[in-house]
């Protein structure tokens, strides 16, 4: 039996028409694939931008509210150099309450002299009410003292706690500067505060909202050791960099925050792809009172 074999034509090929049809189909499939991938990329970019904006804004608003509501004064408006300025401003500083009460030990005589460089106080160590041990940079506000007096902690010496009480000797960074008299038979209370600041500072493509831990002792606002970054996506256009102002409600003065974030994620991809920058832009207007309704 003879085996039949297929012999390829010596000049096998596609015709021009076949090639054109195949090429056309390939182009259409490629365009569909491109459209699908582009749409997917845009949707992913929008979603991530939206979530980043939302997270950034929520975190910032929560933290600003938490810090300012713990302030014992009405926040003071400042600029990016830390100087007091008019509204709207890039930043605020405020005195945050760290703990109270501390009972000041009567030093004898009429009370504390202007030359005093140390103060002894007693704090409660009860688990339900234990103000913290003062740290360097904190300010001890003694009730009845002039409001301009800000005795700052340099170092502390603690004594052994007993009966839920602990004595602490606070060495000040400078002499007290004013006489504080009181009757030794009466308790003299004090509270511990620290001046913090929230400032929108320029930093590359997006300004940063920073919280300065100890604004009173900070000399270089650009030293990363002095601040924590709350948001890296504050808006950089017009009034977006000056979100703070003070509103009045009767006799009360509250901090007003007009906060706008523009996440930098997918800036190039999103450019011109949506109306009003919706996904990357977010703005809220909040009002935050200080603690216990201070008037100044």
């Amino acid at each position, binding site marked *: 039996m003879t085996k039949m074999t297929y012999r390829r034509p010596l000049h096998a090929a596609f015709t021009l028409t076949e090639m054109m049809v195949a090429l056309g189909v390939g182009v259409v499939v490629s365009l569909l694939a491109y459209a699908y991938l582009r749409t997917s990329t845009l949707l992913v970019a929008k979603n991530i931008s939206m979530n980043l904006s939302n997270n950034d804004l929520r975190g910032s608003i929560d933290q600003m*509210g938490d810090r300012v509501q713990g302030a014992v004064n009405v926040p003071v408006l400042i600029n990016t150099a830390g100087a007091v300025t008019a509204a709207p401003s890039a930043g605020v500083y405020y005195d945050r309450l760290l703990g109270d009460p501390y009972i000041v030990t009567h030093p004898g005589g009429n009370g504390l002299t202007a030359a005093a460089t140390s103060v002894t106080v007693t704090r409660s160590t009860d688990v339900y009410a234990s103000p913290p041990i003062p740290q360097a940079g904190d300010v001890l506000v003694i009730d009845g003292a002039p409001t301009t007096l800000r005795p700052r902690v340099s170092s502390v010496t603690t004594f052994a706690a007993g009966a839920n009480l602990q004595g602490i000797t606070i060495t000040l960074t400078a002499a007290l500067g004013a006489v504080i008299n009181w009757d030794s038979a009466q308790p003299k209370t004090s509270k511990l505060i620290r001046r913090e600041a929230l400032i929108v500072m320029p930093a590359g493509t997006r300004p940063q909202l920073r919280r300065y831990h100890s604004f009173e002792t900070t000399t270089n606002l650009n030293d990363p050791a002095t601040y924590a970054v709350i948001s890296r996506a504050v808006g950089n*256009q017009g009034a977006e960099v000056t979100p703070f102002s003070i509103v009045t*409600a*009767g006799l009360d003065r*509250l901090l007003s925050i007009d906060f706008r974030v523009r996440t930098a994620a997918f800036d190039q991809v999103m450019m011109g792809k949506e109306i*009003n920058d919706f996904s990357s832009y977010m703005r*809220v*207007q909040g009002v935050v009172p200080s603690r216990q309704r201070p008037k100044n």
Partner: protein
Amino acid sequence: MTAAVLVGLVAVSSVQAFGVLNRNAAGNRIITNARVIVQRNIDTALAVTCGKSAIPAILATTPTAGTVYDDDGGAANIVTVVLAGTGGVQLVQGTLTRIVTSVTNTDAADIRQITFRLNYTFRARAYAYSLTTMRAIDD
């Protein structure tokens, strides 16, 4: 052919899934805006000075159904929930309702229950966000 259909189905469904994700993200994001609006009024109501002789407007009692409250100075009786970018376009607006009622108590103290509720519509669906608190007057 089967493979082509499967690829098409995967493509269409994934794009739809991305769309749903975006809609949910946008909805949640607007809730954040709503929360801030309600929160700022609750905080103000808790913080303002309020004496027997001077009750601030934000703490004046209302019918149990409440009254419309407009605190943003924009269009009358409307609060802006979502503001667009630099153009200032209002994407979502809402109605803020203030409800302040007296709380009966055995000491006959002036205690008020304060509710702020924000109603708004997004993508043809109605949303409401509200917070309630209580406070006494200062004296």
